[in-house]
């Protein structure tokens, strides 16, 4: 996805042919995600297929590689896939960590509940003065029970290997970008499903989607999802820009709880059923919203980056 080199127009919101093709390839590799599925085991075969095709574990070298990676993260979250793609496509490659392992990402100060802890091969542990990679196994992880889509657990790694030249600020920024892309994909998936249901479900002799009181709520949700989607893509292009990445994460997370509640409200009891599958996005939103300090932390980081010249 090279940029135009002629000094001409460079703002382009359309996916190019390469991006379109790659997203379709990634989607095909993970296959259909059933509406009701176990949340305790990730599909390692699917992850291996993504690695074989260069979607994870591939260095980020070219202009636009971060954007391509973020697009894949967003797309797979949109498809309700539960795989640590953000870590494998963005965080590890962005820090020069090689390999096709399943990575969890954790803050050294908060190892108590880490997403993918019990499923990952290794953890990228971000400290204050550096980044470590810690191998994980049954003896170093403790699974926790959760309904919030992702496997989580505690990690107590005993062997750390320092990643040479890995900057913790960069690590957190890449993590935040990946998180934002996951949120954006989940928002889009949830809104799509709810809109389709409201168009189909008839009450009072007409589709629920024809009621303006409901239209406005789902339209607001759609606008929020669009803001998240495009902000994430913009931030992925400007992945070194602390403010842009934090603002994208904020935009994608700040209304996630409200939308989780509201989108379920719009679907009535049907929305709770496993076969309907809305939970795959809504509960995911709740889980993702908690990561990296949540919206308040993203918001303070925007302010620090914009007006105090601080970095994360």
């Amino acid at each position: 996805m090279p940029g135009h080199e002629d000094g001409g127009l460079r703002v382009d919101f359309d996916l190019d042919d390469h991006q379109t093709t790659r997203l379709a390839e990634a989607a095909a590799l993970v296959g259909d995600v059933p509406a009701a599925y176990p949340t305790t085991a990730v599909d390692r075969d699917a992850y291996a297929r993504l690695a074989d095709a260069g979607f994870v574990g591939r260095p980020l070298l070219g202009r636009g590689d971060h954007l391509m990676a973020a697009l894949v993260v967003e797309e797979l979250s949109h498809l309700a896939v539960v795989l640590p793609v953000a870590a494998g496509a963005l965080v590890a490659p962005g820090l020069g960590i090689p390999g096709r392992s399943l990575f969890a990402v954790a803050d050294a100060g908060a190892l108590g509940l880490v997403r993918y802890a019990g499923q990952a091969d290794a953890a990228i542990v971000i400290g204050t003065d550096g980044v470590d990679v810690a191998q994980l196994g049954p003896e170093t992880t403790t699974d926790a029970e959760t309904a919030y889509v992702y496997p989580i657990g505690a990690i107590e790694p005993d062997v750390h290997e320092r990643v040479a030249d890995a900057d913790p600020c960069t690590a957190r920024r890449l993590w935040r970008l990946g998180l934002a892309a996951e949120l954006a994909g989940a928002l889009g998936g949830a809104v799509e499903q709810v809109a389709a249901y409201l168009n189909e479900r008839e009450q009072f002799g007409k589709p629920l989607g024809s009621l303006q009181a409901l239209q406005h709520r789902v339209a607001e949700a759609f606008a929020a999802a669009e803001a998240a989607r495009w902000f994430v893509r913009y931030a992925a292009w400007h992945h070194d820009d602390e403010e842009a990445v934090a603002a994208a994460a904020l935009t994608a997370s700040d209304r996630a709880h409200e939308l989780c509640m509201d989108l379920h409200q719009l679907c009535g009891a049907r929305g709770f059923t496993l076969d309907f599958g809305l939970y795959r996005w809504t509960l995911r939103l709740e889980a993702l919203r908690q990561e990296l300090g949540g919206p308040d932390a993203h918001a303070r980081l925007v302010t620090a980056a914009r007006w105090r010249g601080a970095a994360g």
Partner: protein
Amino acid sequence: MEFEWSDEEQSLRAELRAFLDEELPADWDLNTPGEDPSSVFTREMAGKLADRGWLTPHWPAEYGGRDASAWAFVIVAEELWAVGELRGSQYMNVSWIGPAIMAAGTEAQKQEHLGPIARGDVHWCQGFSEPGAGSDLASLQSAAARDGDHYVVNGEKIWTSYARQADYCFLLVRTDPTSQGARGISILLVPMDLPGITVEVVPTMLEIHVVHRITFRDVRVPVSCRLGDEHEGWGLIREALAYERVGAPRFARGAYVLDRLAEWASDQGLLDDPELAGRFGRARAACQAARILTYRVMDDRAKGRPNTPTPYVARVAIVRGERAVAELGMDLMGSEGLLRRSRADSHVRTAMIAGLGGGSYEVQLNLIARLCLGMKTGA
């Protein structure tokens, strides 16, 4: 997909900022954009911008532009709107009135109107809303009856910005008296000095933005003033309105005001307060989200795509951004925010307008539901 300004576009922004540093009077930026629609100063500034090719950079050279990309216009609009809009009401001319004439006008209309717009020496108003047709604009009743080579216009337009200063009105009228709704509407480009037109100020609490009532009594408008086909004006106006929704880069003003508020808060040591820092971050992100979504509209525009729903989504984000800044400004300034022409005061009132100007927030939601989510007309 990529998001990078070209070298040329970055240079344009830098040149504009240098120009503004030189030309802006002290405290000009306390003006709300559009507050000073056509003073000697804004007329002079519009002329200077035109001389530098910055008024209509994106127009074809044959109509007074310099064939620059649509992005050049975006940059100009952002920089000027942020500091209080040096073009006065002429931002509207170059954003959508000129392009509408370019798209549908006769050669004579193009010759008559585009040159003065590009030179920055003409003012327009838009004759849209009526006492009985606001959000439901297509129900308008102002009538234009054909009488030979003239239309005889009778009706009333209201809430019209810039009417007192306008040389022309971009007027929506019903030319088919048997029609209802969007069908049977035509557009007339009406000189405001025609006999039978009266303009009155409608007093409002806004102060920063004067609105008017325009009354048309047996106003004889030459048929040659009609833009586009008779009875078929709605399609054209829908397209024009889409751009009007994002034509004023309100997010840029919001971001500018927020920067000034942050400077003040920082001087007071308030920006270290975690809660306040969070609110600043949220307001900033809201403005930037609106900016990015507006860029998406402009991308459609640059690629010549008509009738996309992107403006409605952008407008929702714009309103949210304006409101976030306004609320923060008022809370930050406290009672001082209540003082006339404080930063908080003007931004609160402009944020009130944001949810209505160019179509109400709720109309945007209706359009999103229908066009983006496939929902049927609301009940």
